[in-house]
């Protein structure tokens, strides 16, 4: 049997190979060996780097004021209402990749309603507490702290739902402008969740009574179910880009945020399932909260809705009715390419979306 012919590498081939090995070793050493570096990076990832002070706290609410970054700010302060199922640091993920930092650099005075994980003693907090009481109290503290009577409110995801409900109930209140990012209002557009909760086998009362607070893992699993293989795809993308440090860090930050969903107070979960997912009361005009009719048509302040074309968590079918239902004459919708999170933390948002938001908000903030 003939042995395959073996050709010794040429001098040039050897030199090229040596060069490649040298570069690989240098790269590995500079990153303390990729596998270890990934572990280390995930531990050291700093999120929420923008300096802030805490202004008010109640239950699972933390109201923060971000320290201004310009000598002059717009007259009307901005209050961001974060979704109570997600960590607020997605809005301030890293330096240069922070929605909040962007607003500060454009000259806004920024406050954030952020949430810590609710405990068993918070299980009774429902939609009224979140959408009315806590937002009202936060607005009052922003007014007191800033010295201004008017406040622009920006809500993200479920935070947008809370903000819109508040603005509808207090249509003559202090809200100067309302901006909702990818805000669900029509449960028909959330086909999977609607299918799950509409079967008689799904007993939300029993779930809430048994658990008190719906665990973050359960929330995480229900979000994962909307795109079950996305996590695996992200990991593969990470492997394919393991030599790109910036990509690795950004990916790990997103991954950390995505897995850190907040638990949900039982009463809020019950209200969302019964009034929103099952009853779809907001778009039907049947939503009553604290004996007050929630009519989005009563919102008269300048209104902007921002939606993402490829949003799988809040598809445009679930959010687009908001613009139609809001009664403001001055209302707009911006639909950008991207997903649910890339609107407020994506690398391109800083070039594509945020300048459009700034253009809309700045002229209405003086």
């Amino acid at each position, binding site marked *: 049997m003939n042995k395959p012919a073996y050709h010794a590498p040429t001098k040039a081939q050897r030199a090229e190979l040596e060069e490649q090995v040298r570069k690989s070793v240098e790269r590995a050493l500079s990153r303390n060996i990729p596998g270890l570096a990934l572990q280390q990076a995930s531990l050291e990832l700093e999120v929420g780097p923008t300096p802030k002070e805490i202004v008010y706290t109640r239950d699972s609410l933390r109201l923060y004021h971000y320290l201004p970054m310009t000598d002059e700010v717009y007259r009307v302060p901005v209050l961001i209402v974060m979704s109570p199922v997600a960590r607020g640091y997605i809005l301030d993920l890293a330096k240069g990749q922070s929605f909040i930092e962007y607003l500060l650099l454009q000259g806004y*005075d920024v406050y954030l309603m952020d949430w810590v994980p609710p*405990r068993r003693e918070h299980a009774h907090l429902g939609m009224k507490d979140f959408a009315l009481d806590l937002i009202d109290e936060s607005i009052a503290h922003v007014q007191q702290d800033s010295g201004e009577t008017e406040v622009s409110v920006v809500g993200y995801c479920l935070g947008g739902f809370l903000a819109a409900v508040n603005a509808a109930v207090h249509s003559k209140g202090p809200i100067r402008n309302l901006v909702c990012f990818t805000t669900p209002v029509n449960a028909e557009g959330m086909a999977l969740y609607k299918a*799950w909760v509409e079967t*008689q*086998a799904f007993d939300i009362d029993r779930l809430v009574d048994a658990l008190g607070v719906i665990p973050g893992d359960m929330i995480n699993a229900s979000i994962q179910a909307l*795109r*079950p293989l996305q996590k695996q*795809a992200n990991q593969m993308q990470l492997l394919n880009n393991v030599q790109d440090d910036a990509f690795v860090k950004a990916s790990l930050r997103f991954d950390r945020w995505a897995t850190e969903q907040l638990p949900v107070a039982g009463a809020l979960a019950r209200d969302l399932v019964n009034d929103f997912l099952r009853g779809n009361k907001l778009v039907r005009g049947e939503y009553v909260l604290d004996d007050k009719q929630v009519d989005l048509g009563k919102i008269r302040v300048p209104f902007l809705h921002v939606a993402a074309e490829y949003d799988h968590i809040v598809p445009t079918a679930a959010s687009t009715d908001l613009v139609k239902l809001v009664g403001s004459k001055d209302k707009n919708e911006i639909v950008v390419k991207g997903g649910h999170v890339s609107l407020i933390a994506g690398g391109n948002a800083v070039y594509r979306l945020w300048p459009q938001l700034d253009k809309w908000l700045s*002229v209405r903030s003086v």
Partner: protein
Amino acid sequence: MEKDKLNPMAVWREWFVKSEKAWSQALTEMMGDEKFSKGMGRYMQEALHSHRMFSEAMSQYLANLNLPSRSDVLDVSDRLGQIEDTLAAIQVELRQQRIQLARANSIANPETGGETAAPAKPARTRRPPQHQA
């Protein structure tokens, strides 16, 4: 990059990433099926029931072994949460005190603004750039 294309694992991973959306959509549609939804609802009820039974049975067993149960761990977690609440309330109070002290100092020493004056608040006079206005 050319070399990566020759890596079969990288090519497979690239294919997975590109086709993930379609696979995910198929799985999500399957999970939205009535049968699946009913099954999931029933599974959840059973899981809640067995969780309760198991917790009750285990709590006595763990107490005998002098080990903490899930409920004990939750109690500790709640206590930590309450301590964090208190710390947050103290931070709020300190901020208030600092602001009041700074105000009092600037009234007492209007020229210097007081040694402990808080950083001057920016004027709320910003106007949008001309091209946006």
